[in-house]
């Protein structure tokens, strides 16, 4: 397995780095936050990224996409992570479009995939519910088929990433089975403006855009179903695993940037007449962080390659996703905690950037399963 970047990937990394450096300094993230921007990300930038092909990287060529793999997308996501860019990669590109690509009807694909690739449509996966923690099948939202053959979906979703602006929502609902049962889940494509749907913006510590999505007797036909009724878990599982790998690439970028900023500060800040980076205790801690990042990079790279390997079993990709997310969750938090500590007092101020990474570390750690959840799952997949 190739664990270093191909020439194409290296070139892509260079151009993505340049793009985000020019267009997405951290001041942009602050400005969106401080203005309480209604969209919460930049539609203009999103359109530019679409032009570069990034939004359609995973979209098949017949839908105007690039038909590329996770490895390439992860290169871009890493750079997005360095910039803490809040654009809807996770919600739209990694989750929703992939669900449609894997399980959707031809009509659904025609309607949405090219539009995502063109950077026009944004989508959101309304799946998580309050109290579900990391359980993937903890869905209480119900889907009942009436005598008229129409579905009525009711429930409340929380922390739906980009739900506030998504053109359509992919909603999970239960047509059968008990609350944690993977069987019995359905996936519906729901217009955000549909009757019975109400969306309320939420604010999270990382200021990434999330919303509560309430569904009250939302009426839907079979044409809204993505994949067979009751079988959504089989589409969700591989998509969640790949999205986890993508999230890890983004986290890797964020933590690498936080680390580099910290090392730069160690070289620049003087106390006792010398740069604080001359103090051996701090040197050793920085070296430890570098070690952690080195190992994290290896697993993220390997996981992306596994996701692109047609011969890899679903279990193998799942295990690699868990290997990667457990490590990245711990490592990002460690880097961010140490970063604040090594910046000292200024690290605690809103003015400095390291705090943005600390907040993001905590949210990312809790997104798509925390470290403990992934360790448990990994061991189960391995067989002990």
């Amino acid at each position, binding site marked *: 397995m190739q664990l270093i970047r191909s020439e194409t990937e290296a070139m892509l990394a260079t151009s993505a780095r340049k793009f985000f450096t020019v267009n997405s300094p951290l001041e942009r993230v602050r400005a969106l936050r401080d203005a309480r921007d209604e969209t919460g990300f930049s539609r203009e930038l999103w359109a530019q990224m679409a032009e570069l092909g990034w939004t359609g990287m995973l979209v098949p060529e017949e839908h105007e996409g690039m038909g590329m793999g996770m490895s390439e997308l992860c290169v871009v996501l890493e750079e997005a992570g360095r910039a803490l860019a809040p654009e809807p990669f996770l919600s739209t590109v990694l989750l929703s479009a992939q669900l449609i690509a894997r399980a959707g009807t031809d009509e659904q694909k025609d309607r949405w995939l090219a539009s995502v690739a063109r950077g026009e449509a944004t989508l959101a996966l309304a799946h*998580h519910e309050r109290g579900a*923690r990391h359980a993937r099948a903890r869905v209480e939202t119900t889907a009942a088929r009436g005598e008229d053959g129409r579905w009525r979906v009711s429930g409340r979703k929380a922390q739906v990433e980009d739900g506030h602006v998504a053109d359509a929502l992919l909603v999970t609902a239960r047509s059968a089975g008990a609350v944690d049962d993977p069987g019995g889940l359905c996936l519906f494509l729901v217009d955000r403006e549909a009757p019975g749907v109400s969306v309320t913006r939420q604010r999270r510590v990382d200021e990434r855009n999330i919303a509560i999505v309430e569904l009250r007797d939302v009426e839907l036909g079979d044409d809204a179903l993505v994949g067979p009724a009751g079988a959504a878990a089989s589409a969700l599982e591989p998509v969640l695993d790949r999205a986890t790998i993508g999230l890890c690439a983004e986290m890797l970028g964020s933590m690498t940037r936080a680390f580099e900023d910290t090392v730069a500060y160690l070289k620049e800040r003087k106390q006792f*007449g010398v740069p604080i980076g001359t103090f051996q205790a701090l040197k050793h801690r920085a070296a430890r962080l570098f070690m952690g990042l080195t190992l994290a990079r290896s697993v993220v790279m390997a996981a992306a390659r596994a996701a692109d390997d047609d011969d890899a079993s679903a279990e193998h990709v799942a295990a690699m996703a868990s290997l990667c997310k457990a490590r990245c969750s711990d490592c990002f938090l460690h880097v961010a905690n140490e970063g604040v500590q090594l910046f000292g007092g200024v690290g605690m101020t*809103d003015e400095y950037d390291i705090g943005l990474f600390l907040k993001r570390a905590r949210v990312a750690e809790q997104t798509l399963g925390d470290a403990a959840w992934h360790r448990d799952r990994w061991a189960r997949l391995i067989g002990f």
Partner: protein
Amino acid sequence: MTDLETFRLQTRAWLEDHAPASLRDAAESRGPGGFWGGRRAKDAPADERRWLEVMAERGWTAPTWPKAYGGGGLSAAEARVVDEERRRLQMPPPLVGFGLKMIGPTLLRFGTEAQKQEHIPKIVRGEIRWCQGYSEPGSGSDLASLQTRAVLEEGEYVINGQKVWTSYADQSDWIFCLVRTDPAAKKQAGITFILFDMDQPGITVRPIPLISGASPFCEVFFENARARPENVIHEVNAGWTVAKALLQHERAWIGELFAGSVAGAREELVGLAREYLGAPEGPIPDALTRDAITRVAMEEDAFLLTLERAAQLTRAAGGRPGPESSVLKTAGTELNQERCALAVQLAGPQALGWEGPGFTDRELTLARTWLRSRGNTIEGGTTEIQLNIIAKHVLGLPD
């Protein structure tokens, strides 16, 4: 019945008569750690002001300080009784703050008779709220490199420079401040410890927004601020001695403060686990979570016992905390960080809210408290500085 037992009964009766009922059970609920007093606290709730007044009248805001300066004149054992009886009634302390915990003890040790007469009674009565002018932008861990200048002109010190991380400077009346009075001397040797009023035109205070959303610290700018020479503590250019002694009081106090915020960690964490993991009683079913709580809870017990042991050692050694206070500061702050991080972990995605809707008020405190806790190992002397102190002054490792 021993004298102490009699004293306890009397104290109990007196407290029951005088403690405002509205404050009972309120222990920690108002302000960080209790009532901070000062000129700007005039609008504080009447019961808090009343509680301060009755206690201060007996000197029981500072029970062991000499009666001559308004203190209670009690023995350590008697002071303990007052404290225990107050807690029995679940009353908050009548007064907290930098006056009682830092500048007061420092004045008792280094102040002249006149300085004690001027300042200590006002501290005891909570009339003046104090802040601490130590750190500067270029002088954090390397405190002795501070640059704020004080020059004697026409019988007054004229002060120019900037302090940073000054806790609650925006709510304080007076400052105890380190200033450079001899720029030519070796850095520790040119520093003077001086007191002055914050309410004067040469001083500007700006709160610093933190990542937690709060702003407990300020930047303080001095532009020809004034201080009287009679408010120099100890001697001119000998302020470093005073500063170091005061820092030991600070560290010991931070230890105590964390005892307050740490005590009850176990109940809080177990409660969160029961709520968010759905285990209303019995052993917490997730063994890893239970173990994580157990570790923090055991650490809490060990820390509280260590704090108590350190207090007994300090009393046995004549009352002054030694460099071991760095152990308390470090252990207490790291424990608090672990507690806060675990609380966030327990509430899971529900701990990630910054504002409503979709998060309960309780949930909304979790992330902010966690973020704030990251500063614990920086403020009051970083962990790195504490470890340096332990290595040098306790273990005698060479420079």
